[in-house]
């Protein structure tokens, strides 16, 4: 006897929970009704991301690295579900390995990007990298690999993120959210909004509490988004969908230099 499956409802991922869009709207993608996120959802997500910022950036780098590694553990456990919603097992394997690669950077960044600076005077002078803050990300294709490739470098450095998922292939992003929710990622560190690019992009780009914007996945009017971002001097980054580099992490870090006299 055949059995009727219970279909999953795909909602947004905000503050560690899965709410529907406050607008109540959905759109159809990949054969499912997907939440059509609104400006207000973006607003809520940014608020959650901001609140989560202090605790996330305050964790030791080692702890953050462990959390990211656990994200990889959860992704590995859900390999089949993720593969069914994206390009397949190869994309998933690449995505997992990419997360592991970035996890290993957490406790090494300061050693590679920071420095002790030999100034000409009796001062101890050092430079340390610090997270920028709430970062908006427009995800490029492919829908899973593009997402983790742009998300991991943002959060490993201590930033929190509001992610706009792929418009055509949003389901894998929410599936990934389930991995995040079970990987000890503190609520609010990553927030994922599904919906229409043309509505969500400008909402994110114009938000005054979003301090950095990853436009790697922006199609359409990138110039307009960059113009909106200029209002609060956002750090705008255009990366590549399938790359990994500590400089992708550095793009979302500030540098702080500290002086202190040396003397008895």
């Amino acid at each position, binding site marked *: 006897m055949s059995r009727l499956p219970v279909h999953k409802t795909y909602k947004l991922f905000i503050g560690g929970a899965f709410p529907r869009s406050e607008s109540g709207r959905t759109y159809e993608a990949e054969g499912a009704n997907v939440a059509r996120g609104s400006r207000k959802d973006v607003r809520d997500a940014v608020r959650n991301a901001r609140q989560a910022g202090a605790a996330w950036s305050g964790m030791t780098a080692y702890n953050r690295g462990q959390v990211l590694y656990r994200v990889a553990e959860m992704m590995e456990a859900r390999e089949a579900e993720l593969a069914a919603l994206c390009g397949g097992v190869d994309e998933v394997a690449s995505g997992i390995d990419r997360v592991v690669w970035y996890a290993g950077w957490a406790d090494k960044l300061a050693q590679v990007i920071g420095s002790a600076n030999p100034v000409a005077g009796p001062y101890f002078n050092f430079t340390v990298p610090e997270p920028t803050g709430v970062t908006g990300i427009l995800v490029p294709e492919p829908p899973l690999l593009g997402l983790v490739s742009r998300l991991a470098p943002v959060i490993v450095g201590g930033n929190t993120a509001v992610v706009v998922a792929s418009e055509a292939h949003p389901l894998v992003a929410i599936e990934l959210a389930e991995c995040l929710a079970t990987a000890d990622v503190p609520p609010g560190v990553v927030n994922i909004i599904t919906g229409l690019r043309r509505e969500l992009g400008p909402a994110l780009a114009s938000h005054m509490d979003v301090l950095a914007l990853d436009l790697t996945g922006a199609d359409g009017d990138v110039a307009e988004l960059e113009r909106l971002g200029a209002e609060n001097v956002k750090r705008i980054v255009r990366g590549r969908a399938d790359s990994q580099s500590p400089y992708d992490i550095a793009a979302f870090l500030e540098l702080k230099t500290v002086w*202190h006299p040396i003397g008895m």
Partner: protein
Amino acid sequence: MTKDKREVARRPETAAIPTDWEYSPAPESRELVHLQDRYGLFIGGQFVEPLSNERYTTIDPAREEPLAEIAQAGKADVDHAVKAARDAYAERWSVIRPSERAKYLFRIARILQERSREFAVLESMNGGKPIRESRDVDLPLAAAHFFYYAGWADKLEYAFPNRTPRPLGVAGQIIPWNFPLLMLAWKIAPALAAGNTVVLKPAETTPLSALLFCDVIRQAELPPGVVNIVTGDGRTGAELVSHPDVNKIAFTGSTEVGKAIQKTLAGTGKRLTLELGGKAANIIFDDAPLDQAVEGIVNGIYFNQGHVCCAGSRLLVEESIYETVVSKLKRRMRTLRVGDPLDKNTDVGAINSKQQLDKIGALVQAGIDEGAEIYQPPCKLPERGYWFAPTVFTNVAQSYRIAQEEIFGPVLSVLTFRTPDEAIEKANNTPYGLSAGVWTEKGSRILAMAQRLKAGVVWANTYNRFDPASPFGGYKESGFGREGGRHGLEPYVALDGA
């Protein structure tokens, strides 16, 4: 209710003061540990009988009871191990992608975290250190060390500007008995991350956590021969050092043996790193936060019974606060709990071996004979086992043996100074140069002292802090090479050519 204008009764007689509050025994369970009666050598991914046919017994120093029979690896065994390591290097380790090597190391880190309690109990049983330390310090740091270096395995090109680092091949590693598992992690993690394979010899008296680690290797599915463990005494170490097919030797132990190793390797072109002894000065200025400084002194010398190469074994106190500091120190020493290492409330555990106990006793007697004043808080030491009460010597001159020689026990020597220059002079007046401590509220003075102290590690307003990201190693006769941090990779890679 009307207000009563009566006189409030005087407070009655004082309430009773308790005569004692003995903490009931709070032992961590030994049942977590499943010991075999005898162990072989771990070579090529499995346990094998020693070709030497020689064995010895390892004991629990707190009870003087045997724990297991251990193999004494001879020349042929060491050769077997090195061949297995070479084989694994060529066939199974250097040929896989670095990101795969990384994932093996991550697995090891996670497994150590999962089996942390089991390892901590074993470490305390075999070595004598308090369970609180093995549980809260040794194990977390060991797991963290693997986790940290796992992340470097596929990022080596970022660690050395303009260089593509290559592994060296087979590393021979010899570790001491004071932090058996942690020292194993400090050696194996960077070596493997850099792409080498290893033959490691744990200390004679503390082989068990290394042997249990072989089970972690099995669970992590590490390719056979990547890590080989050969147990034995100094003879095994000597065989490993002089084996022609080992590309690099890493040794942590006494300065005396370190010098012997350096002599043995002279002219061979083999790479070498040494992490040897120390006689660290812990310097307290008059503006130091005193109660916290006293905690730092205590942690500096009584942590792990003083079996720490970087122990703050010389207290240099600014003369103006000498009385206060010594008085606070003695008071604090009286609250140290010496006893069963497996009791969760124990602060100071057992001395690792009879040999070490005798050595400590001899140096303490020398201190008394030379005229220093000794203080030991009253402790009820157990009947069996190797124990030494926390000890502090005052009226110590710079020239006394207890101020010059490494005691490697819970014995502190107190000296005074008047000016920062004098403190620096006394602190640096030693052939050692591993570590130093500085206690002062004044930031610029911390930095000035740090600049002038000839020590590989300077702790300011803290002591005995370790982290896989923080390079550790000595100046002068405390050795050369660093462990931990980006710099900890350097001993395990070849950097010639861009």
